[in-house]
C-alpha cells in the first residue's frame, strides 16, 4: 500500500452504523465480520489505517 496517508486517529474509528436499521455498531479491533445486534444483518468488515469500514454483506443478495 502507499505510504502517503494522513494517519490521524479519530475517536470513533471503530464505530459504524448498520445500513439496514441505523443502529450503532462498535466493531472489535481487527474483526473481519460483524452482526448488527438489532437486526442481525451480517457484514464483512475491513480496515483502513485503523478505521473500521463496511466491505459488504456476508449474504449478498441471492435469489
Amino acid at each position, binding site marked *: 500500500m502507499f505510504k502517503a496517508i494522513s494517519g490521524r486517529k*479519530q475517536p470513533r*474509528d471503530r464505530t459504524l452504523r448498520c445500513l*439496514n436499521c441505523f443502529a450503532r455498531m462498535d466493531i472489535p479491533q481487527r474483526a473481519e465480520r460483524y452482526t448488527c445486534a438489532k437486526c442481525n444483518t451480517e457484514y464483512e468488515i475491513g480496515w483502513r489505517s485503523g478505521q473500521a469500514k463496511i466491505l459488504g454483506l456476508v449474504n*449478498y443478495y441471492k435469489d
Partner: protein
Amino acid sequence: MPLTGKVAVIDLTKGEITKTSIPEDLRRLYLGGRGLQAYLIYNYLKPRAETIGPDNVLVVSAGILTGSMAPAASRTQWGGKSPVTGAIASSNMGGYFGPELKFAGFEHLVIKGASKKPVYLWVHDGEIEVKDASHLWGKDTFETQQAIREELADEDIKVGCIGIAGENLVRLANFRTGPKDAAGRTGTGCIAGSKKLKAIAVRGRLGLRPAYPQKALEYAKEAIDKIMMTKVAKAMGVDGTSYIWNVTNSSGLLEWMNGQTNRFPFGDWHDMTIERFHEEYSTGIAACFNCTVHCRHQFRLKEGPLAGAFGEGPEYNTQTAFGTYGLNNWGDMLLGWHLANLYGIDTTGWCNAVRGVMELYQRGIIDKKVTGGLDLSWSNAKEITPKLMELTAKNKGIGAIIGRGPLGIISELSKYSDKVDYYIQHCKGLGKLGNVDRVQPSFSLGIATSTRGADHLRSRPALDHFNLPEQVLEKLYGGKVSSDYTSYDGKARMVRWHELTYAVVDCIGTCKFQTVFFSPNLPAYEEWSQYLLYNTAMEFTKEELFEIGERVYTLERMINLREAGHTRADDYPPERSFKEGHKYGLKPVRGKHLDRKKYEKMLDEYYELHGWDNKGVPTQETLKRLELDKEPSHIV
C-alpha cells in the same frame, strides 16, 4: 490587493482580447467562480444561440478563493450553453489549473466567436496570446499537455485541453487537465472544439496576496485540523470517493444494466471494490492544490492494449459508470476510464449512453444493423469497450449516436420503438449515474431539478443517508426534515438548501468534499465567511452568502428558461423511477419507487421555497428581491 483577478474576453473570430477588473458591487452579488460565471454567460451568450458555433461562449471561472490560503482552494468552473442538453453547460474541475490561472492574474476567461484554424490560448502573467495549434490537432489529452510544455519550455505550465472527441464535435466531449481532471459533463469540450480551441495553457508568477496573511495562515490550520479529524477525511484519504461504493452496493443502492437490477449481475462484487484495486493496480495517492485529504488514486495498467500506462483515478463515478454495463474487474474498468481520459470524453455521460443503448439491444429494439455489426450484449462489454470508445471519439457509426447523449439517442432511435424514450435514463437531456435514486425522494428531486440536468453534485444531499437526528437537521436546514431517507417530509427544503450551499461553494472555489457535503462537522457558512475575510478582506454574513446562492441558482434557472424553455415539465426524474421498484436491497430499499402524487407535492413545496411559480418560473417578486430583474446588465 487581495482581489486582482481580471475578466478577459477573448473573441476568436476577430482576434480581439479585452481585460476588465471586476467591480466590487458585482462581487457582492455574484462573488466569483460559478456565480460570476452565470452572470457572464447570461450577458455574453447570444440568446438562443446554436451550441456548436461561434455564438456560443466558453467561460472558464476560478473561484473567488481559488489559489488562496484556504483548504483545498483548487477548483475551476467551466460553462456556456450545453451541446448535450441545450441548457446551461456547467462543470467543475479540481487539480492545479484554477490556482495557476489566478496566479497569472485572471479569474475568468470568456471565449466567444470561433477561430478558422486550430489555436490555443497562452495565458501568462497578465498577458493572453492566441497561438497556432495545428501541430497539436489530433493529439490526445496527455500528449497535448506535454507538447505545449515542451514548446513553451516550462514544465510548470498547466494546460487544459480537448482530445480528439472535442475536435470531432462529439457532444459528450470534455475539457481536461492533468491525467484525469475534467470539466466532464455538459459538453464543454465540444464547445471548445467548435471554436477550434485546442487548449488553454496557463502560467502565473504574479501570485496572490491575502488581505491578512497571518490570520489566513492560522485560520486555515485550524480548519484543516478540524477537517482531518472527521471520519470521512480518512475514508477519502485512503479509498478516495470509492469508499462510497461498498456502502451503496451493500444497501442495494447501485443499479446495473441501465437500472434493471440493483444486485451486481456480472460476477463477484468483491472484484469491483476499491480494496481489490489497492491490491492489484494502485501505485499511490495524490492531492489537488492545497488539499490535505488527498483522495486521488494513481494506477498503472498491467495488461491489454495500454499495458504500462500511468493514470489517475478511479473515482466512485468510475465504478458507477464503467462498472455498470458488464465490466466486472478493474483491468477492464480502468482501461475504459483511461481511454475516455485520453480521448476527452465525459465518462459518466458516455457510460449512461452505452447503458441505454445496450438495454435497447437487449430488448431487440435495435439490432446489429443499427450497431454496425457490433454485439452490444451485456456479456460482451469487455470486448466492445475500446471499440465503442473509439467510434464515439471519431463520431462514427453507433459511436456517433452514443456521443450525442440522451436527446440525440432518443431522436435517432425512436423510429424503432416509441419505448426508447422510457429506456434512456436522463433529466433535461443529461444522463444519470448508475445509482439508485428512485427510493430516495431527496436524491430524485435533486437530479430532476439540477440546473444542468441529472447530476450528482448540484444538490446531492449525501447527509440524508446518515440518519442524523431531527434536531440536527432542523438546526441545519431551518425547518423540519425527516431523518428517514425514504421519506418525502421536508426533503424539498433539504434539496434546496444543498443546491444553494453548493452554489456558494462553487463560487468560492474550495472542494465540496471539504464541506458540509459529507458531514455536518465539515466547513460551511461560518468557515467560508472567515476564509473570505482573511483572504479578500470582504465581509459576508451567512445570510448574504445564502442569498448569493439563491441568486446564482435562480439565474441559472433563467438561463435554462431562455435557452431551452425549461419549466416544470422538465423537473422530473426518469419515468422508470415512478414505475419500477427494485427486487433486491435492504429493507429501506427493496421494492420501493417514487409515488407520483407525493413527488408533485414535494415539487410544489420546492418551487415555493425558491420563490418560483408553480411552473417553476422565477416570479417577478423573486427576481426583484435578488436584483435579477435588471439582468442582462452588461456591467462587465
